[in-house]
């Protein structure tokens, strides 16, 4: 079934662009070099193919561009990262969004840093660079070991910071980035089933799956991811490429249906809030009544939009 996204649900503004900068750091060993490239490649593929991110707005910097020459834009040196961020800042509209993802090793000897070929890039310098995005919603994802300290250094208005570890002391190799890339690879991370994936959902998926991986391997979990602002992260959404949108209701019947749908959704929310005060059977009875009504309205809306069952 193709997801039906209704404009009333608040899909991202159609004109806003998402500028994506993916940076893979220095590997140190061949296996990490390849792993970082593979994780970044998967993430980019998923963003483009699943969520329709414009390839022209995606820049990938890596330690060894030769590993994927047709996709990697350049070497991930400190200077190049700085240049790309400055370039994005110069070209971004006030309502645009920025997604910055770092995949690689990290370190924190008093200041969290990204381990790049040549000089590292520290949180202080990154913080200064981010000043160039005063109005844009900026999401920064650090999938590195010892990355926890970035949250305290970089959090601010219109800014979401995600780190793979809780603090700078979690220094072991992480699996965060592998799982985070997978979050964009299907519907599994869309837990509220509204057809869109928010950064908050991607984060929840990742933390959940990381914990499960450690548990199934009977290993002590050595990474605990953090998210700076879950409210903002719920607003940073990705809409599936194939989603259909009913954005305009130009007749009274359609408007009535949408209004009915909205009312039912509010009623369901209200019922869910009362859950603790109701007997389980009574709760289910009322919920079912509302859901049947909602499902019926949705069916009619889909029929009007020509979406098959």
């Amino acid at each position, binding site marked *: 079934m193709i997801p039906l996204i209704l404009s009333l649900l608040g899909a991202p503004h159609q004109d806003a662009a998402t500028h994506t900068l993916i940076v893979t750091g220095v590997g140190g060993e061949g296996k990490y070099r390849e792993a970082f490239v593979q994780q970044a490649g998967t993430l980019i593929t998923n963003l483009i193919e699943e969520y329709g991110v414009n390839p022209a707005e995606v820049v990938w910097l890596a330690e060894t561009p030769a590993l994927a020459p047709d996709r990697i834009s350049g070497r991930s040196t400190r200077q190049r990262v700085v240049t790309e961020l400055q370039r994005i800042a110069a070209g971004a509209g006030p309502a645009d969004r920025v997604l910055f993802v770092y995949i690689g090793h990290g370190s924190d000897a008093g200041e969290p840093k990204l381990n790049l070929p040549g000089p590292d890039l520290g949180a202080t310098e990154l913080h200064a660079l981010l000043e160039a995005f005063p109005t844009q919603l900026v999401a920064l994802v650090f999938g590195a070991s010892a990355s926890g300290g970035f949250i305290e250094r970089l959090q601010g208005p219109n800014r979401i910071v995600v780190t793979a570890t809780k603090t700078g002391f979690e220094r072991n190799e992480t699996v965060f980035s592998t799982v985070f890339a997978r979050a964009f690879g299907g519907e599994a991370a869309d837990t509220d*089933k*509204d057809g869109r994936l928010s950064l908050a959902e991607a984060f929840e998926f990742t933390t959940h799956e990381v914990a499960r991986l450690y548990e199934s391997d009977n290993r002590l979990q050595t990474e605990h991811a953090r998210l700076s602002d879950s409210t903002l992260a719920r607003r940073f959404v990705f809409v599936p490429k194939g989603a259909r949108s009913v954005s305009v209701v130009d007749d009274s019947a359609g408007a009535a249906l949408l209004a009915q749908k909205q009312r039912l*959704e509010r009623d369901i929310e209200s019922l869910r809030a009362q859950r603790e005060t109701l007997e389980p059977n009574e709760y289910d009875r009322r919920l079912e009544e509302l859901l*049947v009504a909602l*499902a019926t309205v949705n*069916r009619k809306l889909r029929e009007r939009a020509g979406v098959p069952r």
Partner: protein
Amino acid sequence: MSRLGTMAATIAVICGATLPLACQQTQAQGRDAGREAVRTGDYQRALAILSTLARSPTATDADRFALVRAYRETGRYAEAVETASQFAALDPIWHVTLGELAAIRGDLDEAERHLRTGLATEGSLAIRSGAHLGQLLLERGRREEAKRLLVNVIRGNPGRDGESEDLAAVAAALEALGTAWGEPDRFREALRMYDRAIAADSSNLEAQVALGTMFLAKYNRPDARTTFEAVLRVNPRHPRALLGLALVALAEGRAEGDDLLGQALETNPNLVEARVALATTHLEREDYAAAEREVSKALLTNPASLPALTVLAASHLFGGAPAAYDTVARRVLDFNPVYAEFFAQMSVLSARNRFYQQAVDLARRGVALDSISATALAALGLNELRVGAMREGRSHLERAFALDPFNVWTKNTLDLLDTFDQYGRLESDTLRVIAAPDEVDLLGPYLMELGEAGYRSLAARYEYRPTRPIQLEVYRHHPDFSVRTVGLAGLGALGVSFGNVLAMDSPSARQRGEFNWGSTFWHELAHTFTLGVTDHRVPRWFSEGLSVVEERRARVGWGAQLRLGFLMAYHEGKLLPVSRLNDGFVRPSYPEQVGFSYYQASLVCEMIEMTRGSDAINRMLDAYRRGLPGPEVFREALAVEPEAFDKEFDRWFVERFGSVLEAVAGADGGAFHRELQRGLLSEKAGDTEAAVVAFERAKELFPEYAEQDNPYWHLARIHREMGRLKEAARELARLTALAESDYAANLEEAEVLEELGDLAGAAEALERAVYIDPRDPALHERLAVRYGDQGRWREAARERQAVLALNPVDRAEAHFQLARAWFHAGDRAAARRAVLRALDIAPAFERAQELLLQIRGISPQGGLD
């Protein structure tokens, strides 16, 4: 006689009674040497010197005590008594020694007479007599009188300036009070007092042995071991220190316990406690006749030894002689009418022999005799838990813990019980599963299916129907399982059956591939039947063997299989004859022996079925139920002498595995090993055809070999790479039929079968993998799809429930898929419940909304379907 001993005798003759100064000096040197020999355990030499010199007019008390000690420590009690009696005229302190010696020999009246004589005096003599007499009266059940005496001993504490022996006597009195009246603080005081006694005289080995024994009694094995070892560094032949160290080793399940007991008895063949310990090891091996023989020797020395009589009673009870048991029990109670320890020990021994309900009944009798017996209360509580009486068990354990907080078994078990509130339950008429809530959800449906199928199958085979529901406890953490079963962490087993209560590790307690939790449950369930049908009299080897056979019957691939190590053990003569197979379980002599014994026992059961029919198994079980000793069971049920059966099994084994035995014989691992290596090397070199030939040959030589680097796995991989999927599937099928815990092989087989379009076969392989490790949601999703493909929607629903139990991040989708499976399975009510949960999480979930409308029968036109 030693050289010095001869010299000492000569000195005595030459010097005669006149004792010129030179002779006196020489005698003094000889006596010094004699005392030193006693101290260091050279008893023969000591006796050679002191038997003459200690009687000379110039001899000191120390010389005389050393002589009597040498007699005593070597078990020559009659000579010790005779000698001490001669010295008694010199000093009344000898009444203490004579009292002790009389007690050792079971002459309790004589012991009391001597000790009361000592008690009538003052100072050291009164303290030591009082301590011994107090303990003696306790053994005779005269508790109040004993208490008065022991309290007086403590009041007479000589303080810091007291002699070491007096301080040790006070310590012993404190310990006795602590034990008999459940006063934990007394042990702490006793410890301080023993320390003072040892500080006052570091050569007082008796105080050190007493301290070590108290440590052992209070479950502190590390300190007990250190203390006994310190004594043995001074005197390597000290019989009671050797005994103490042996008891530590036996308690820890270490093999040197038997050897240490042997050393103790070599020094003192009449050491009653060592004989009792040895007899107890025979009891644990279920060799009741040997236990009786051994304990009879102890009773020759001390016919009033309550621990010896207790073991004798146990050998009668478990050996099928209830009348003899009653006689001994009466004898014990005649000596001490409130001897709760008898029933406590009988309870512990009953539990070790798997008579759990009997253990409860016996412990209860102990508590009735002495309501503050911590050992009886602990035995009662632990065994009530084993038979499923959880509330009563907990209550008794709490009482036991208040009286004896040092008991780690009690403490650990109470700690575990504190967590039980967090456990979940799933119950049918047949089975009650208790586990962590998420594990109940995950494992429960499979366990219920297995439980129902197992009950039906086993009830039919053994013509016995255990009381239902059978309780199964599944522990996520192995130490919890271990505490539940033996009270301590460290048990190596995967599961245990107490009869109608089973406990086992959950898959989360172990690494993937370490075990198969499905077959483990089935194994333990089979015990419920073999234990129940024999009133718990089935010997361990037979019950284990049958359980393994039942695993193999239950599912393809389940149950222990032939291993290379087993064949090596055969070649090395390390396998036990059937008549002694029980030893392989209860007292293994090398680490792998338990595992080998499981497999061997299963072979014995298979051989009996093959050569004498399946009825023979039930005839044996019936004979065990009637209490026949093992050899009699073989004679009656199989018409064969045990020794003849040993030989018959050996012939059968060689006939069945002769070619395999030959293939693995030789220092280089035999032809099998050579072919396997050739295959591995060829594969590595890329010569796959040569590898196939070598692996095929290895397979032919040892078809049961399914361990790491087995030929099936390599052949399957080669065939798959070459696109020969059918051949790959065949090899994998052989492998998964041999290796019950090979997760990777089952997944590989499922993939290959899917590629071949054999979806049913793939589902079977995936289901086998679930019983190895059910913790991967992707496995259940895959299996659910396979079942859905085949229209097996109930099974698909079970798999979808498993996904949910694994707490997937996408819970709405998981509920929806479960609803879908129930809907297709025709269970609309279950489907409705599940889809509501999906939509409760995600009201906008369109596919779930549609399913809800379908479940409600609402057609696209708005009407009802």
